[in-house]
């Protein structure tokens, strides 16, 4: 081993936001391996201070264009937790459908537009139109379905406006829900086409495994994205979401402007693979068949298989959406049941948590007597994955070098690893909150 490796990838392409990959090695000796996040802070936790409780979700949904509904839902749940606002079962189910719309949109966007080009050896999805026209059209159609579902439930394709504290400003009609159900049913064969296409390329996913702590929410009743307690593959007991800071343990890394996290080990992973590893026993039949098709089993520690878990989850949320719509239609939609209630303000504090497409998302807010926000803490999934990406790098780079991979092969392997985590770096920057006395 005599060659030198000098990789400095500024701004990994095709992920939201900016990140750098730095590798320096000489003669088999590794001098530096770093996953850096240099993006500027965005100050959302400061921005919401002084805002009314009712405006929080509107503001924080702008944190991200891809997972805006998750931020809205986490914020609403935190506000409702603080102000003791209870929502009806109808509202809860409609919100889960909104979350599912985002999972479909985001996972399909990621697998179809960002990962597929890697697996097919091209630089973007555009060249695939010539080589795989039907696949690209199928991906666009599946993404469109998520888009339409988001628009129907949330009132807009992104940054939902219909969701309110305690309910909805408007809900879909029965006819609209029936139409959505038909589209979801029609999507199942298309999703199988996407799954089979990825399966045909699955041998291109690097065979890299590193024993990892996986964290997600869990619920004894179902494979959850919306409600549950915090669970880790490392321990048997769950943690209440109100104690999320004791799980995330955010800290500052000198190589990043974003905070990093750790719990039982130096790092942990969140996202589709984490949810799968913690909750796979609760998958619905069709989703389980897709997991079986890939040979994906609980305990998988190959981070590249996060993409496979995303495909499984798209099928899971479509399957569960069909059940939820049936239940909503059977019970009969009632606008009054989702009408936002009168809220009595008080000095209070609350926590909300949902599974965003990229992993577990926490929001905490404090309010004064008048319902004005006096403090916020938002802990996003991409930040929770940064430390794990670094740890993967540290184990993967020596393997690449030992295998005498070229610099280009190492660069591509590391870029693919970062993309496998589906990072949304533009919404992950999170500066220190200091007070000078």
């Amino acid at each position: 081993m005599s060659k030198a490796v000098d990789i400095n990838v500024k701004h990994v392409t095709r992920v939201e936001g900016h990140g750098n990959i730095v590798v320096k090695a000489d003669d088999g000796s590794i001098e530096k391996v770093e996953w850096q996040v240099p993006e500027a802070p965005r100050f959302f936790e400061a921005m919401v201070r002084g805002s009314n409780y009712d405006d929080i979700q509107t503001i924080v949904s702008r944190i991200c264009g891809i997972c805006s509904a998750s931020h809205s839902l986490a914020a609403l749940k935190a506000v409702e937790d603080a102000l003791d606002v209870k929502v009806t079962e109808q509202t809860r189910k409609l919100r889960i459908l909104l979350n599912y719309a985002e999972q479909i949109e985001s996972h399909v966007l990621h697998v179809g537009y960002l990962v597929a080009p890697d697996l097919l050896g091209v630089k973007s999805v555009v060249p695939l139109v010539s080589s795989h026209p039907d696949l690209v059209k199928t991906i666009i159609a599946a993404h469109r379905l998520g888009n339409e579902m988001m628009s129907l439930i949330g009132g807009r394709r992104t940054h939902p406006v219909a969701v309110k504290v305690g309910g909805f400003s408007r809900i879909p009609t029965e006819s609209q829900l029936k139409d959505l159900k038909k589209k979801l049913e029609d999507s199942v064969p298309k999703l199988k086409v996407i799954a089979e296409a990825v399966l045909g390329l699955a041998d291109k996913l690097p065979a890299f495994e590193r024993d990892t702590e996986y964290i997600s929410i869990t619920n004894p009743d179902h494979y959850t994205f919306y409600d549950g307690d915090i669970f880790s593959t490392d321990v048997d007991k769950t943690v209440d979401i109100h104690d999320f800071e004791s799980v995330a343990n955010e800290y500052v890394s000198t190589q990043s402007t974003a905070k990093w996290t750790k719990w039982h080990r130096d790092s942990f992973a969140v996202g589709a693979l984490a949810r799968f590893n913690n909750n796979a026993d609760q998958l619905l039949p069709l989703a389980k068949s897709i997991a079986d098709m890939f040979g994906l089993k609980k305990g998988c520690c190959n981070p590249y298989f996060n993409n496979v878990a995303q495909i499984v989850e798209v099928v899971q949320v479509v399957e569960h959406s069909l059940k939820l719509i049936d239940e909503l239609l059977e019970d009969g939609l009632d606008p009054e049941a989702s009408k936002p209630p009168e809220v009595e303000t008080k000095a209070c504090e609350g926590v909300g948590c949902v599974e965003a497409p990229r992993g577990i998302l926490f929001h905490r807010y404090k309010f004064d007597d008048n319902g004005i926000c006096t403090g916020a803490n938002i802990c996003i999934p991409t930040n929770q994955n940064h430390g794990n990406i670094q740890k993967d790098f540290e184990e993967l780079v020596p393997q690449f070098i030992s295998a005498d991979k070229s610099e280009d092969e190492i660069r591509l392997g590391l870029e693919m690893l970062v993309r496998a985590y589906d990072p949304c770096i533009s919404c992950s920057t999170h500066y220190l909150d200091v007070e000078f006395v």
Partner: protein
Amino acid sequence: METRRESENSSGSIIVGVGNTTMLDEGVGVRVVQEMRKSGNYPTGFEIDEVGASSFNIIHLVSSKNIAVLVDCAYMGEDPGVIRMFTPGEAESRKITTGLSLHEGDLIQAVRLMEHTGAMPKWLYFFGIEPVEVAPGDRLSPLLEEKLDEYAGFINEMILSVIRKIEDADA
């Protein structure tokens, strides 16, 4: 200037604001279409919509439309505050694509995807607005804020002009 595309079943027309309203002037496209919606200063029969930073959503909004208009923050080498109208072809040939907002790459990629899948609107136009500053912040620079009415009026006039030309060509 116009490049007509044959697109089956094209129907309806739309004006879409593109951008991130938490990055100062990057969100000017969204702010302009919000202004147009509020004032009603846009051609009859057009939908108004907006997308944030998720540029691929544009595909679903504009594909197979008759006329689609995208309004976005654009680095064009102009003085701050200048608005320009151009087609995707012009932007490519003049390399303007390398400076079209923070989400430029994705937006152009989305347009290319539509071209290659036969989903392009029959007529597609960009309105680019040169920013003063793109940085974290939830408002526009004073210069662009003052010009919102002017932008809305200009876009309205230009679209009406395009409609007249299309009608003349079809006559």
